[in-house]
Every structure is written in structure tokens, then in C-alpha cells.
């Protein structure tokens, strides 16, 4: 059976077709306004090279999905975008990654400030073992974003609202964040990232530890958030990539194999490896 036809059939069967079509409206290579631009990025862990000459543009106010089999370097790549790799001993990054035209690996760039601008949500929900309020308030506090207590409260409430979790937790802001369910914890982490008003939110497999219902809520949330934020998501689920992203990049063995509009990647992939992966032959 033809691969793209098969995928289309699958997507149609899951009633996802209209959603994808809607998301793809007006998005094309020409319309892509790059927020982040990576060129010739190589990453080394000691002697081992994890990424080879990656060139990728990430569009502003859209969702870009990074897919690929395990160990292909997609998580490594997403972590170069906010310099989280800096804390890994022996990790070396070469090449250029610009955020709004400025190279984030310039010596003048402070990685701490960068991480406030490029927030991150991790695979496993990792709220601080503090109250829900403190979880959100911590970022604004250390960055001095709130000048008064009421302002801080406002930031917390706004962030929780934006992350779509406010109604569930408004009565128990002083309870520990670790007492929430997995999906709520992950949305709390998203709210925590939003609280420092970043431009970009990186999500490293944000739904892999969640059940389908919680996953659906996070995906809805991403859809809303992309109105204001640039989102990069690493995912193992191709359906998820198809559902939430406008653009998709396929990584394989440390190389960026193919990137483009999500529909194109999933319906008419240019590269043989992409096709093999999305049809489930490698992975």
C-alpha cells in the first residue's frame, strides 16, 4: 500500500483530518518568519558527535515538531536552543543558533537570561516540591519581574489561566504542586515556564508520561499557546506531531534528514528514511 495514502487513511479514521487542514492554512515556506535559526550546528559529547551540521529554521508563533527514532539527537537539538547542554560535562556545541538574529552562543549572552526567554518543559512533570503558588512565583521572583506582592499574584493567576489549569487549582494554591495528577503537574510546569514571559517554549516529549486524556488537554493548550509563543516540541508520537505542529523536522542518526510543512512531511516525504520512519519501518 502506498505510504502516504495509508497515513491519510489513518488520519481520516481518527477524525483528525479537518484539524490538520485548519492548522496548515496560510502556513508555507514563504510565509515562515524565523524566530530561531540554527546553522551548521554540531554537538559533541566528549568524543562522540551527537549532531551533524543541523540547519533548521523555527517559525515564530507556530509549533515545530522534532521527530525521529530514539537516540537520533532531537532532544540534544532542543536542549541546544536554551543552552541546557551547558550543564552537561564534556558537551561542546559548534555552529550558530540565533534567536531574533542574535547568536545565543555569543560570549556576551548570559545563559541564565536566555533560559528565561526560552522556557522549557520536560518529559517528566517536575514541579518543585513547594506549593502551587510558589512553583509559579519562583521564576518571576528570581528575575525580579514583580515589584509587589499583588503584581506577583497577578502573574501567577495569569500564568495558571494561560496554562488552562487555574480553575482546577484556584482553591488550593497553597497545596504542594507534587500533589496534583500527572497531567495537571505538566500543565503546572507549562504555567511555570510561561510565568517568566518567554518568547519560546521548548517541550521535550511533554506527554510521554501522561495518559491520553491529559495528552489531549496539553495538545489543546499548545494550540492556544502558539498564538503568543513559539513552540518547539520533541515527540515520539507521529500522530501528535501531525495533530499539533505546523512544521516538522525529522532527525535520524544525528542528522536532520528532512524538514518542512507537517502535511508535506507526512503525505509526501522526499527522503526514503522519513518515509520508512513515518510508516513504522524504522524507529
Amino acid at each position, binding site marked *: 500500500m502506498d505510504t502516504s495514502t495509508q497515513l491519510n487513511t489513518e488520519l481520516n479514521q481518527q477524525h483528525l483530518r479537518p484539524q490538520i487542514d485548519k492548522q496548515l492554512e496560510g502556513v508555507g515556506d514563504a510565509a515562515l518568519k524565523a524566530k530561531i535559526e540554527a546553522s551548521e550546528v554540531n554537538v559533541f559529547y566528549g568524543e562522540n558527535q551527537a549532531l551533524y551540521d543541523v540547519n533548521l529554521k523555527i517559525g515564530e508563533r507556530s509549533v515545530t515538531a522534532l521527530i525521529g527514532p530514539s537516540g537520533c539527537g532531537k532532544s540534544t537539538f532542543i536542549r541546544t536552543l536554551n543552552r541546557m547542554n551547558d*550543564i552537561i560535562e564534556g558537551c561542546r556545541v559548534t555552529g550558530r543558533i540565533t534567536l531574533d538574529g542574535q547568536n545565543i552562543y555569543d560570549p556576551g549572552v548570559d545563559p541564565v537570561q536566555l533560559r528565561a*526567554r526560552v522556557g522549557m518543559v520536560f518529559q517528566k512533570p*517536575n514541579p518543585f516540591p513547594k506549593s502551587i503558588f510558589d512553583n509559579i512565583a519562583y521564576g518571576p521572583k528570581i528575575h525580579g519581574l514583580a515589584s509587589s506582592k499583588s503584581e506577583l499574584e497577578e502573574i501567577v493567576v495569569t500564568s495558571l489561566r494561560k496554562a488552562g489549569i487555574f480553575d482546577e487549582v484556584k482553591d488550593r494554591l497553597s497545596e504542594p504542586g507534587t500533589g496534583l495528577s500527572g497531567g495537571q503537574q505538566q500543565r503546572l510546569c507549562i504555567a511555570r515556564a510561561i510565568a517568566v514571559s518567554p518568547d519560546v517554549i521548548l517541550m521535550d516529549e511533554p506527554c510521554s508520561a501522561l495518559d491520553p486524556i491529559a495528552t489531549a488537554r496539553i495538545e489543546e493548550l499548545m494550540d492556544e499557546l502558539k498564538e503568543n509563543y513559539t513552540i518547539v516540541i520533541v515527540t515520539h508520537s507521529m500522530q501528535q506531531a501531525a495533530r499539533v505542529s505546523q512544521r516538522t523536522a525529522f532527525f535520524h542518526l544525528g542528522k536532520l534528514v528532512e524538514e518542512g510543512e507537517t502535511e508535506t512531511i507526512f503525505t509526501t516525504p522526499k527522503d526514503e528514511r522519513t518515509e520508512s520512519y513515518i510508516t513504522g519501518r524504522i524507529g
Partner: protein
Amino acid sequence: MTDIPLTEEIRSDWLSPGQQKNIRRRYRADRRLQIYGLLAIAMAILLLGILVFSLVRTGYKSFVQTKVTFPITLDSQRIKASDPGRGNYRVIVRNAFRALFPDVKGRRPLNDLDKILSSEARFIVRDRVVSNPDLIGKTVDFTLPLSDPFDQLFKNVIPAELLALTRQEVGNFNSLKNRNVISLVDGSTVLQISVYIDPSKVNSDDISAGNFEALLKEGLNVYFKGRIGSSIESILAPDAASVIQKVVEADPTVIGKVLQVKVPVSEYYDTLNKGKIPVTTNPRFSSPEQIKHFNSLVERGMLSTPFNWELFFNSDSRFPEQAGLAGAIVGSFYTLLVCFLISFPVGISAAVYLEEFAPKNRFTHLIEVNINNLAAVPSVVFGLLGLAVFLGFFELPRSAPLVGGMVLSLMTLPTIIIATRAALKAVPPSIREAALGIGASRHQVVLHHVLPLAMPGILTGTIIGLAQALGETAPLLLIGMNAFITSAPGGILEPSTSLPTQIFSWADSPERGFVSRTSAAILVLLGFLVLMNIIAIFFRQRFERTW
């Protein structure tokens, strides 16, 4: 469905006798392992039980103190109201106590009587009068401790009388009885003995100068075949030689012949022969009269054994009945305080640097290995270091808790560093990532998130390290904290003892009172250790968080 054939060779017959045997063997191995574990635990509990039991058995008597209650007239002639601290309390207390025994006369008997009361009693009276000068001129009931032998006697630790003869001595006497050479003459026991009146030892010209002792010994030698010694010679009464002398004086012709004589045996053997057990007054007491006086106090119901608060509120003393642990407890407290103030911040800083900031290279690896080695260094070596460096070079005061704490902190540092590093390692990396991910700097990550989460583990490690330091003796001995100090230290620079060194010096003392006080002090030390471990468990549970 599948092309792979399932051959009979691959399949196992789970019901075959071989398999059944295999399964049974596996279960047996499981049970054996369980039994070994249970045995090991039972052994540990048994040993611990024996330790605690033996300590409690010897130590519990120190938690009460024998005291005598009697009225003392605080004569205003002897105590000036203007300066109550300098009155002649020795005479006041002595006379009041002697008044209980009006029959006792003479210098020695009165001295023996005085020894029943603790020689520290006058200071107790003085302190009470000083704190309450209104008592001067009145007659007040005082409850004062007895001296150590009588305290031990009242607690049945030592007997008033001891067996006068050893088992060997009784055996020697019985062997004589079996030879039928022991008989009763005129109500006193005599030994029949053959004595060769050696002319070289007894001269007929001057019989009184003869060596009759030597003749007796030779006569006894016949019965004991050369095993003669002081324990055998003691069988004979001191006047035995004179009995022979009299015989020879009465009939000098016996010189040069063998004489059969009956000589008296000594008092204890006489008692033994009459079917009683010979006893003697315990040499810890001066005289049998002393014990009579004591017994009369018991009969008059003047003795009591109240709880021994002095054990906790007094400092060391030469007299066991007055010796207490206050100085040692305060000294240990100051020592541990210094130890904590040094090792806690330094240990945590070192551990945080090594775990969170240090690059992983050969140099930091070397440091790590050396810290682990430091934990294994015998504590006495640290004591020598303290002696050479802190006392010798920096000339810090001897026996001071400051130096003790500094030496002990060298010991606790590696423990705290290792425990802190383990606690930091146990904080999940996701917490660090979460904080870094919203733009916290590395010190914010450590101070705001990692350290608070690691704190229960750090505190547990610290308290265990301090508990170890509390029981450490050797380094404190080397810097002189086993000195005899009769007051609690007022600060970290004053000379002091500590609990373990106090135990060490009491264990070395010959008085019986110190034996049980040593056990009591060990129990107090163990009590503090248990308390510290309970605090450690409390911290662990109180601050433990889940993520």
C-alpha cells in the same frame, strides 16, 4: 502462523522429577538465606541485650544514693551571719552526727564513726546555709549522703563480712582432719604434730632463744610434703611455738628427739572445726563497730535511698558518693557545639562544591579519595594532631572544649561531607533542570532547591557524625580532657571533661562506688546517643519530601 517448529527438545517438562527436585532445592535455598539473616539479627540483638543488661545491672544502683537524715544544730557561735560561707561546718556536722551515738567514746572509735558520713557532707550543709542564712541558730533536719563503703553496703553491693578462709585453705584443713590429727581439747581445736627438736635450732643452754617457729614448719611439712607456704602456716595459732617451747622447757631431754605435741590452731580454723563459717570484717570498713553503728542507723530508720540527682547536677569528685556528670555533660555539650559550628558549614560547603560545581578531573578525584580516607583515619591520630598543632603550635588552652571540638570536627568533617554528597546526589536531576529551565543561576539552583531537598539527609548525616564525636575518647585524652575537674566549665576556653573521658577516668578508679557510676555514666551517654538518633529520625521524617 509461524514457521518455527516447536521441537520437543526445547520444551521443558515442568512436572518431571528432576524439575520438581530443582524447585524444592530453590525453596530450600530461599529458606536457608532467610534463616541466616534471622540468626544474624538475633545474634546482634542478643549481644546488644547483654550489653544493656550488664550496664543496667551494675549501673542502676547509682541512680539512687544512700542518705541519712538527722537534725543539725546550726550553732550561731560557729557560723557568722555576716559571712555564712566560712563557718566551721566540719565540727558542726561531726558533732551533730556523733550526737546520734552518745555511747561512743575515744579518739579512734569516734574517728571511725565520722567516716560513716560522706566527707563532703559539710559542704552540702554550708551551701544550704549560704543560700538560706535564716537557718543560722536553728536546728534543721538534713539529709546527707553516707560515705561510699556504707552506700555500697546499704545497696548490698559489698558485704559487711567476708569469708576469712579461701577454699584452698579450707581444703588444707580438711585434709588434716582426714588424717585424724585434729582434735578438740578443752573446747579449743588442736593439731597433733610430730616435731623433731633439732639440737642445732634449740640449744639446751638457752631454750628461750630456740627457733621453735622453724621446728613447727618442719613438722607441718610432713603433712603437706613440701607445699608449705603462708596459707598453710596460717593454720597454726600465733602461740603454737610457745606451746612447744613450754614442753621443751619442762623437759629439756627431748632435745634431739621426735616429740608428739598438740598445738592450737588459729582462730578461723578453730571456728571452722566447730562447724561454723569463719568470717572477717570487710577490710573496706575500719572496724566491726562501724558496721554496728551503721546497722543502728538502719534500725532507727534514718537511712533512705532517694533518686540521685547529684549524679546529674554535681561535677566530678574524689568521693564517689558526691561525683556527678554535670561537668562532663556541659563539657561534652560545649565540645559538640564547637564541633558542629566548625564541621557543619565547612562540610556542607565542601560537599556542595565537590558535587555541584567542581569539574570532574583527576585533581577533584584525588580530593574525593582523600576525604574518604580521612574518614578511616584512627581517631587517636587526630588527637595527636590536635596535641601537636592546636596545643603545641597555636598554644590553645589545654583540656578546653574549644580544642576538643576542633579535633572532633576533623573527625566529623568527612562523615558530613560524605553524607551531604550522598544527599545531594539523591536529589533528582529533574529538579535542577526545572530550576535551570526557568532561568535560575547555578547558585540559585543549589540554594533554593537542591540544598533544601537534601537537608534531611544532611542533618541525618551530621547528627550521626556528632553522635560518633560524642562517644569519641582517644583524641580527647590526648588533649587532656580527662583531667580531674570538679566544676562544670563556664565557656569553651575553660578546662573541662567530657562524657567519654569521664567514663574513662571513673573506670580507672578503685572505689566500688565508681564501678556502678561508670555503668551509670555509660547509660547516660547511651541515652544521649539514642536521643540524637531519635532527633535524626525526626528530621528525616519531618523534612522528607516526595517528588
